[in-house]
């Protein structure tokens, strides 16, 4: 099915099942511990051995020797894989990391060896017996120090162009009546998903099956084939349940490579999980940025010039953190500029984390907007509303498909009680606590990609859907089931959803906030085809046949749906592809975040007291799961605002706080009741589903709303995330 024109009325618009708050269909499994995650697929393999990775002890240099004698002789050891015996390994197409070091070391905790043993305890003990000699080399670990050496990166597959210029930014900024020119930083952040990267690998001849935990099955197969130098057809990846990803499990990382190599070397299936203290320096992360923002406005608060520059670093060839993305579309202003710069750093690879670019970009842009509002003596909500735009500010005439930023801000302000905010910082105190309120806009692109699915109808009227889409907590199982149920006119419990298997029709997987909209559209296409097959099987007019209540009817002729499959299951497969609508329209999601914090007047401890988010994000397929995506993102935003930072030891070249005690993420006590309002939005330019994503939108702007609230409480403006009490203390004395 090719989607080229805005969608008209279609079976999804019945909204009997789509759009209803629906419990997750896999809930009974997840809540009883019976959903199986990668490492837990013991039933699939016999005689499994355990792999354990030894990470590099240095950040940059070479391995001169690995003495394996003690490890080899250790109890239970079956095999040891190093670069010396692994064969040629290439890299994947999305990450530049090499997953086995040697002789060269590219970053700290890069895998140096994989030890395979009969038990986990034996593999772990033996790994520590490997004696590795290194020759250290000088590395580059400090973004501040190499900022001026940063280059303009080549255009990237995802993210904005490295430079954009509209009108005369420099001239307009120079002559603006009110100006802001500030520099902000966002730190290296970890995905810190709760399930560590894990794989069980099994070879049968030259065929490799891996139970793994990755978000994009198609990329995974492509990359693993590339890395191991084997045909794609020989690889099957299965990830039925994934314990969180947030972009950190996009495609193949060290666990998949190490388990595959280890299983080949040991001649047995191997299970391997990255030990938590290794994850931070071994895998990918959201890289640090330095961002300079310049805003010029006239006295009335109309923005005349807006410029956003961002510097980040990466391993050679790695991607740029595209922090300028949101600034291109969020506010009006005739003269605009964005610029990305990339430096070389020898830290672990920086790559996608939930709302790449947009999350760190909005962390800073939305502080800048708060600062600017203050300079203008305007309410921050009013200032934002004043600079709303209904067309792409870089391409006047190009409309947003839908855009209700103003309604988001107004609805949120009302719900939150924004009018109680006192614009003068530090003016509200309750006991020991200074109270502050903050706001931020939210914006996140709404990409959509081709996606395929297969649906099968059996004679009992039940439908089985198969697509290689994954569910990383996003609710894919349920919305895919809802889509099929709505399309075929049956109850949700008549649908079986099978996902997370690369042998199923290809979807774009979970990432970039495209998963829900894309994968359900693929299911729509397949179901559309199945409806045709059913109708013709029953001798009904396809155009007139009604699918509802488990029946197919056309006028007074009515059949049970299953009747169409009386002589055997009916199977339909299709793929949805897209025309040019995304060029014609700016397709984007919007929102607003309101936060109240309390800051201890003696210690400056910061606690979030209230949070309200309003989102405008296309048709909401399952309001229950969509709301959960948003509260989860708000929680991650609180972490980004107040505590999350991988601290770089610039001498050694590694993230020092590489475990979950050192890298703090929010706990229950940090998060109050969160209110989410989903504004009605139906976007026919997107797909037949008229839906967009929401999981990343929920994160954009949250941290700035918190930071702005802290400013309102204390009068101290912190421009270096995370906003911690020491940074406030320093500025109050």
């Amino acid at each position, binding site marked *: 099915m090719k989607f080229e024109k805005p969608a008209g009325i279609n079976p999804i618009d019945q909204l009997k099942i789509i759009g209803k708050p629906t419990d997750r269909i896999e809930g009974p499994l997840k809540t009883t511990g019976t959903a199986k995650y990668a490492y837990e697929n013991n039933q699939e393999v016999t005689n499994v051995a355990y792999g354990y990775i030894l990470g590099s*002890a*240095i950040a940059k240099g070479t391995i001169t020797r690995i003495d394996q004698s003690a490890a080899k002789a250790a*109890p239970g050891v079956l095999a040891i894989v190093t670069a010396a015996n692994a064969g040629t390994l290439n890299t994947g197409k999305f990450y530049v990391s090499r997953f086995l070091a040697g002789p060269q070391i590219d970053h700290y905790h890069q895998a140096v060896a994989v030890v395979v043993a009969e038990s986990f*305890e034996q593999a*772990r*003990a033996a790994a*520590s017996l490997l004696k590795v000699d290194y020759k250290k080399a000088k590395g580059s670990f400090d973004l501040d120090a190499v900022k001026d050496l940063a280059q303009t990166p080549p255009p990237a597959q995802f993210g904005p162009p490295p430079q954009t210029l509209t009108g005369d930014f420099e001239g307009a900024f120079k002559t603006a009546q009110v100006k802001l020119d500030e520099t902000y930083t966002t730190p290296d952040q970890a995905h810190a998903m709760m399930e560590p990267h894990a794989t069980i690998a099994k070879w049968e001849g030259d065929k490799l099956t891996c139970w793994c935990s990755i978000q994009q099955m198609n990329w995974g197969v492509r990359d693993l084939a590339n890395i191991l130098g084997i045909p794609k057809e020989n690889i099957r990846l299965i990830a039925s349940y994934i314990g969180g990803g947030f972009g950190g499990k996009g495609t193949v990382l060290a666990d998949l490579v190490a388990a595959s190599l280890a299983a080949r070397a040991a001649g047995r299936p191997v299970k391997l999980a990255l030990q938590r*203290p290794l994850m931070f320096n071994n895998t990918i992360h959201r890289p640090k940025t330095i961002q300079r923002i310049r805003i010029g406005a006239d006295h009335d608060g109309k923005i005349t010039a807006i410029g956003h520059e961002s510097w980040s670093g990466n391993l050679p060839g790695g991607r740029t953190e595209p922090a300028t993305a949101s600034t291109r579309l969020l506010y009006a202003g005739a003269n605009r500029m964005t610029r990305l710069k990339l430096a070389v750093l020898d830290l672990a690879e920086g790559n996608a984390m939930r709302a790449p670019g947009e999350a760190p970009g909005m962390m800073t842009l939305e502080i800048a907007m708060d600062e600017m509002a203050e300079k203008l003596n305007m309410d921050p909500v009013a200032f934002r509303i004043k600079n709303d735009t209904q067309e792409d500010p870089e391409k006047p005439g190009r409309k947003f498909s839908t855009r209700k930023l103003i309604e988001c801000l107004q609805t949120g302000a009302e719900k939150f009680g924004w009018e109680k905010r006192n614009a003068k910082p530090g003016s509200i105190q309750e006991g*020991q606590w200074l109270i502050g309120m903050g706001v931020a806009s939210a914006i996140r692109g709404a990409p959509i990609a081709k996606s395929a699915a297969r649906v099968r109808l059996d004679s009992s009227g039940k439908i089985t859907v198969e697509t290689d889409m994954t569910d990383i907590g996003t609710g894919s199982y349920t919305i895919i089931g809802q889509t099929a149920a709505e399309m075929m006119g049956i109850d949700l419990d008549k649908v079986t959803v099978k996902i997370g298997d690369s042998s199923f029709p290809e979807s774009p997987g979970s990432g970039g906030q495209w998963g829900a909209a894309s994968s359900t559209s693929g299911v729509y296409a397949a179901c559309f085809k199945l409806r045709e097959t059913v109708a013709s099987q029953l001798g009904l007019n396809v155009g007139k046949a009604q699918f509802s209540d488990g029946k197919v009817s056309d006028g007074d002729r009515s059949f049970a749906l299953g009747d169409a499959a009386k002589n055997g299951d009916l199977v339909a497969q299709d793929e949805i592809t897209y025309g040019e609508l995304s060029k014609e329209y700016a397709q984007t999601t919007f929102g607003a975040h309101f936060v109240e914090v309390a800051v*201890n*007047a*003696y*210690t*400056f*401890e910061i*606690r979030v007291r209230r949070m309200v988010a309003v989102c405008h994000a296309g048709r909401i397929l399952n309001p229950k799961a969509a709301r959960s995506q948003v509260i989860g993102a708000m929680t991650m935003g609180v972490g980004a605002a*107040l*505590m999350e930072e991988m*601290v770089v*030891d610039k*001498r*050694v070249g590694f993230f*020092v*706080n*590489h*475990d979950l*005690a*050192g890298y*703090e993420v*929010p*706990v*229950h*006590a*940090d998060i109050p009741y969160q209110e989410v309002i989903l504004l009605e939005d139906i976007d026919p330019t997107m797909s037949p589903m008229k839906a967009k994503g929401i999981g990343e939108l929920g994160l954009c702007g949250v941290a700035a709303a918190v930071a702005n609230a802290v400013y309102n409480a204390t009068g101290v403006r912190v421009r270096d995330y*995370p906003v*911690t*009490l*020491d940074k406030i*203390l*320093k500025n109050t*004395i």
Partner: protein
Amino acid sequence: MKSFTYERAETPAQAAAAASKPGAKFLAGGTNLLDLMKLQIETPTHLIDIGRIGLDKIEPTPDGGLRIGALVRNTDLAADLRIRADYGILSRALLAGASGQLRNKATTAGNLLQRTRCPYFYDTNQPCNKRSPGSGCSALAGFSRQLAVIGCSDACIATHPSDMAVAMMALDAVIETVKPDGKTRQIPISGFYRLPGKTPHLETNLDKNELITSVVLPTPVGGIHVYHKVRDRASYAFALVSVGAILFKDGGGRIALGGVAPRPWRVPSAEKLIPKGAKEFASRLMEGARPTKENAFKLTLVQGTIEGALTENRS
């Protein structure tokens, strides 16, 4: 984790005697020891599980204090009605530490003897004088935001992470032990921990494999009991600074600090300045501090936290 032999001791005497075996270590709750063994920071070759040797009761002492068995779990200690009523600072400190699950497992003795959370101590690739004497201190010129500002040395600036011990310091607790040969002794908590000097790997004045049997709390001293633990996240985090205070009606008090030193930090001679306010008291308490650039804020924070505690509880 290295291989080890395991024995389940039945009595304190049996446990104490077993401790003379080479490479032996006591396993109480295991929440710190096993963590460190997994990373091969601790590498005992023999574990003596003392989980079932008794010593799990809290009993009155003849002079009106309480004797806390070494194996009393942190949850049970915090929830004990006598502790809550008369030693609130101790309940509060315990409840501010770790998590519900960890407190259910962690024991009184294990908590006293838990080791530092310095991130370099936790990474065996990095030099660390505490973990491998003579290798150097990575933290001094490295990431030291969490670490000590006072009582530390050029060899080590690690903090002692216990909250419970801070309260015990304010309460003048006494630690009771037995040695492998059966000899017992009492060590006041003020003389229990060592400062690092040139030997940061030696953390207490216990003999190797001396078994802690109990901790004695003297007669209750009354007063208002406060424990304010300052940290970035609201729970399940170690202290940046913590203040354990017992404040008396006459304006006097006792104040011990966590998160600032290699042991719970208390300077009794400074406490006469408490009535003069946080500023004067804190500057005496922190006399001789030697913070790094990254953790100098703790000095201001100490004063602010004390001021908050005094203001709140004096009004």
